[in-house]
């Protein structure tokens, strides 16, 4: 045996905190599945000596703040009554919960534990802030969110995160041949 530097493989792989941004878009759920398949490979089947969980998985969903919606009133109302505000908020909260539940379901099916965080604010900024606060090792985002514009090759949130997040960013593109 040489006394040259020991290969790092003798230690356990360092645990990573991976934050995945999720919303209602198919792109972000695909990003989550990709991350689960490639970053948290499950110990399915034989192999009893597979490495332990790779780290901590946190799902982050950014809920648009209420003002964003109140500024665009639908219908004849000139201002929002408190009951309208309430019902909009309830619908939003429910929507967020649904998004998070769907994402958690995907994780559960692959036998991966995930924490979930819902943040309120502009998605670009709040996702980057949340990632920073959580000492994230890797931030995973889809490439295109709810934008239906075919020519948008990179959505505004993923573009913002690529530029401004202060941790490594993983941008998952939709599979080829997908729509």
């Amino acid at each position, binding site marked *: 045996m040489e006394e040259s*530097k020991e*290969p*790092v*493989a003798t*230690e356990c*792989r*360092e645990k*990573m905190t991976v934050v995945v941004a999720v919303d209602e878009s198919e792109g972000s759920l695909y990003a989550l599945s*990709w991350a689960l398949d*490639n970053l948290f*490979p499950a110990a399915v*089947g034989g192999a009893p000596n597979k*490495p332990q969980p790779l780290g901590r998985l946190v799902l982050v969903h950014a809920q648009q703040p209420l003002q964003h919606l109140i500024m665009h009133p639908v219908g004849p109302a000139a201002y929002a009554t408190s009951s309208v505000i309430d019902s909009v908020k309830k619908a939003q909260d429910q929507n967020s919960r649904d998004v998070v539940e769907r994402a958690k379901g995907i994780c559960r099916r692959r036998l991966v534990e995930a924490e979930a965080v819902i943040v309120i604010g502009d998605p670009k900024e709040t996702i980057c802030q949340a990632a920073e606060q959580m000492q994230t*090792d*890797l931030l995973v985002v889809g490439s295109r969110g709810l934008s239906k514009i075919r020519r948008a*090759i*990179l959505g505004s949130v*993923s*573009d913002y995160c*690529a*530029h*401004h*997040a*202060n*941790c*490594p*960013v*993983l*941008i*998952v*593109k939709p599979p*080829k041949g997908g729509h």
Partner: protein
Amino acid sequence: MAAEVGKPAMVVGIDDSEHSFYALQWTLRRFFSVADSTFKLVVVHSKPSPASVVGLAGPGAADVLPFVESDLKKIALLVIEKAKDVCSAFLVGDIQYELVEGDPRNALCEAVEKHQAEILVVGSHGYGVIKRVVLGSVSDHCAHHAQCTVMIVKKPKQKH
């Protein structure tokens, strides 16, 4: 079900900047520090062509090019050697080094096509770290145009 399917490829683009070597080491630590890694590694360095580096026009240009070319070749080989050094500290089974020529933006996207890579890894800055630019042009281009998942590894700012 243990079919002999090839491992998906991970392409890591490097130049001679600290940022890209940081990205390479970060990737090795996170993905290749156990014997049975999920990916096979392809390290790609693109050597710029002398014409793109030398902004001269006029009669003198042609004379300078051969010198520039041999310098660029030297630098490129050093980059590959350094990458081999860095990788040798990790248990990477399947690793390929590729030296290509041309604009890194296209070279990396082509390498992704060629290897049908699952993921492309780049540092956040390469040459010429201009303070106001928060993301280098190569990483920005790859984030937009690469066909596969792109991972941008940022070197943390020195806080102390």
